[in-house]
């Protein structure tokens, strides 16, 4: 197997992006991606040219576990009383970094956001997505359609550009 250092070097940015789209937190994304690599090191993975897909699967599963976790729910509770000024500051920083389209996609509920991310960012087919998230392909197609329906009125003119690419 390749040197772990070169694997981490090659895949980290992509996995961080993927984890961020799920969790919407850079800090959490870092923790989760780190966990993924540690799990990968402990696994008996055999290289068959599918390393990227394997790491993606580990990352998606880890993110979904996190979103269901007690830690995440506790953070949600803390967010109900966190200082408005702190949130305002974080919000400004986040807004400066985000694109409008990205912001709208990130505002989608996770079951729609996930499909958009896997379809457009990971460039997976609906069949591949269905296999990854263990849902029927028809469900994936329905979610993709509904996610697009949700995005269309929010993106207005940008939507036309995206759909004609």
């Amino acid at each position, binding site marked *: 197997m390749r040197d772990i250092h070169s694997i981490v070097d090659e895949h980290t940015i992509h996995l961080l992006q993927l984890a961020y789209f799920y969790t919407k937190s850079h800090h959490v994304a870092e923790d989760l991606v780190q966990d993924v690599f540690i799990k990968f090191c402990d696994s008996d993975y055999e290289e068959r040219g599918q390393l990227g897909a394997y790491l993606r699967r580990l990352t998606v599963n880890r993110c979904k576990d996190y979103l269901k976790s007690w830690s995440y729910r506790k953070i949600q509770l803390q967010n109900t009383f966190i200082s408005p000024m702190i949130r305002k500051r974080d919000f400004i920083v986040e807004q400066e970094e985000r694109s409008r389209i990205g912001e709208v996609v990130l505002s989608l509920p996770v079951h729609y956001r996930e499909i958009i991310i896997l379809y*457009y960012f990971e460039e997976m087919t609906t069949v591949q997505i269905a296999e990854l998230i263990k849902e029927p392909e028809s469900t994936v197609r329905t979610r993709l359609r509904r996610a697009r329906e949700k995005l269309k009125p*929010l993106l207005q003119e940008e939507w036309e550009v995206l759909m004609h690419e």
Partner: protein
Amino acid sequence: MSNMKQELIKAAGDLTESKKRVMAGVESRRQNPRKKMPKFIPAIATAVVILIIGVFVGQLVNKESAQGMERDDILTFYQAQIETFEFDSLEAKNRAMDQYLSDVEILTYGAAKEISVTDAEKQEIVDTHLGVLPEEIRSVLVKKLEEKGFTMQDYERFVFEHIGLVGATKKQLLAMYQEKYTGFDEMVLNNLIAKDATKYLEENHPEKIAELSELMGYRIGSSIGSFYKGVVLAVEDHAFLFTSGYVGKYSNQSTPFHNSDSGPLHWIPKREGWDVEVGDRVKLNISTSFQSDEPQGTYNPVAISGSLEPITDEIVQFNIASSNHFDQWQKTIDWATQEVEFNSEPIYRFHIDNQTYDGWLTPDKQWLELYDSASRQYAKVRVEKFAMLMEAMIP
């Protein structure tokens, strides 16, 4: 690469520093795997410990703590304690809940580590806790306790039985961690203990997690966002667009707003008997759910309860304050009579009815970000559209 993919990559931001941290973290964890790994415990011993802890947590979470403090009383004492320091009732309730959940985690983790606490150790914590209480704070606390039907003696018992127990457990855990991780700051170790305690409860007590989640959802759901007052901006067959705070008539059927899950604008599904028109001012009773899979950092009205009520009160105040600093409001101007200059990144504060909204411009000066301090949510409005709406509202 598709436009959408490019936009998503932009949304994730620059991750160069994150990458460095991940690489360093992976390297560190590979070189020192045992440092952060849970200590190995044989399977039979684990089963026995879990059984004992299960009984313990069952007592603590279901009815009473091991020392006889009832859960609701613990929450009420914490709330009184937090309110004493000028937090409002709602915030105090949430902070009390957070504190209680952390206590359950620490006590469970402490039990797993076979920690036992003596009365002398608890008394030491009590002396520290009560010994630093200034008289003026004490008198406020007494008042808060009385409002909730308790006396100072009841509170002292709470401090001994609960805070003392948690504090002494934490102290012993810290000593264990200091022995294990030499050379680390106390604060770092306390954070590590808190993280490990959360992880322990999560991994070993799914049934209690479910129970605490239910308690948390019920408490928060019944306390947060009990209502929003606002105006109907658009009406569709099965839903209407509602925003809290904006008042007056607005006749444009199409919404100029960016309707984000994180903003104070919401498409609300209609219910039977909810006949609304554009421009109606209504009070919307909402409840929230912690079971939602909504994104982190937002708090959305995912479930609606109660009724939709018409509101008849008029605008009592409407003005804008502008400042370059959060804490120093330099001037107050009337939107209706004075043009606001959008420069040097000022922050605009709006007072509508008795609610306050803070707004600031995006760097391109095309959008106004609005912060609703009542619901603690955000909206993004095009400056030109916002001006149109304001003109329509001001007589």
